[in-house]
């Protein structure tokens, strides 16, 4: 049986891993590759790197970071997001060591380019980032470039119905970095219905994670800051979740 995943998220700003609070305030954590090595050693199911300043600065993907991560010989699947605008960016990110890509701004601005990426990489390698928040008029999309909310672009709907992206990273923008605060209603957003969803933002408690993983469209839970507070955080978390739907905790030292 396919297991649901615990994804470790590393948020990177100016090349450094940071603790993010609502994508508004940032505290330095250290080198991304060191944190990735810890997550790899603790047996997280997937590692997601989000380089949050690459698109706004029009810098393209952080190839140097991907190369440094790949050089560490991580044995955990790696997803990279940040600055990916073209098919050429996407293929280079994969060839330098990522297994999948996370697209953000280009998902909304250039859906045709996302189709080109999927035609080369396969849709299973493409994840879309969808940061959501509540406004007076209901659920809206957060545009981190303008720092404003916006409606759901109609062009994106086709990318979901045509299976151009395989999974959606649903981000609770307002609660990101705040413990046990993820708003589960985002996972029932009408325009996401039927898509495979990864929940992220304000998720850390086992009972909360269990409730989210029990939702049929949810394939994974992504956790950022909360996995960095103590050693073996991934194994501890997995021990506290019901067996069966997730991969059991993995201990490198016990097996080697």
């Amino acid at each position, binding site marked *: 049986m396919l297991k649901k995943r615990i994804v470790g998220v590393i948020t990177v700003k100016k090349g450094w891993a940071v603790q993010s609070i609502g994508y508004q305030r940032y505290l330095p954590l250290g080198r991304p590759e060191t944190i990735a090595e810890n997550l790899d050693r603790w047996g997280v199911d997937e590692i997601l790197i989000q380089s949050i300043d690459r698109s706004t600065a029009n810098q393209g993907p952080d190839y140097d970071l991907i190369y440094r991560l790949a050089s560490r010989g991580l044995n955990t699947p790696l997803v990279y997001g940040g600055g990916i605008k073209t098919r050429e960016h996407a293929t280079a990110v994969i060839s330098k060591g990522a297994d999948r890509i996370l697209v953000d701004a280009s998902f909304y601005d250039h859906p045709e380019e996302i189709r080109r990426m999927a035609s080369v990489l*396969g849709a299973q390698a493409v994840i879309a980032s969808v940061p959501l928040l509540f406004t007076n008029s209901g659920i809206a999309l957060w545009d981190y470039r303008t720092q404003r909310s916006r409606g759901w672009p109609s062009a994106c709907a086709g990318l979901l119905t045509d299976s151009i992206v395989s999974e959606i990273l649903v981000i609770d923008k307002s609660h990101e970095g705040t413990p046990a605060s993820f708003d589960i209603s985002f996972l029932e957003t009408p325009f996401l219905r039927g898509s495979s969803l990864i929940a992220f933002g304000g998720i850390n408690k086992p009972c909360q994670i269990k409730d989210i993983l029990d939702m049929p469209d949810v394939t994974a839970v992504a956790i950022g800051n909360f996995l960095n507070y103590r050693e073996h955080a991934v194994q501890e978390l997995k021990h506290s979740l019901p067996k069966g739907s997730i991969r059991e905790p993995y201990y490198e030292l016990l097996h080697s």
Partner: protein
Amino acid sequence: MITVGIVDYGAGNHASVTHALRQLGYKVRFGCSADVLDMVDVIVLPGVGAYPSAMEGMESRGLVKYLRKQAAQNRPMLGICLGMQLLATEGYELGHTPGLDIIPGKVTPLRSPRWHIGWNSIEHKGRDPLLVESDREIFYFNHSFIFDAPEDYVVAVSHHGLQFNSIVRRGKVAGVQFHPEKSQLAGNRMLKNIIESLYYA
């Protein structure tokens, strides 16, 4: 020391595979020319991508004829994920594309669910030594197409909505649908067992 040659066909996650193989103690070379690949002990086709563009990359580098010839000469070869699917007779991703035709079979889409992404177990069919230690172990999959091969070539299966082939083998050529290089301890063990059993077979 066994030398592994990773085939460069312009796509794929060769960096990840290279690092995993080096960690296991193998010497690794990377290239698309006979000069490089003739000198290695085991040929590896990595893979992340779509079938037609991968075959186009193979064709444009003269690898289709070369790899068929190597398989006919019984040289050890391992395909990973898309690399496994390229070993098939034909693929149906974004239309029909002839494959390397090294292991009979066709590559067809998963229907429902459309993706198979994440960690899943494999189930050993028979007594292939490739799998002595890995039966029922869990590996990382990331694909939306499957390799439909005659039973004689099926070494292991997995389940996701339907049963599909997760390892195929014909002589000294094997393919795995999952990513052993990204499957932590279980993957490293499997990768080492496959490389060495193909090499010493």
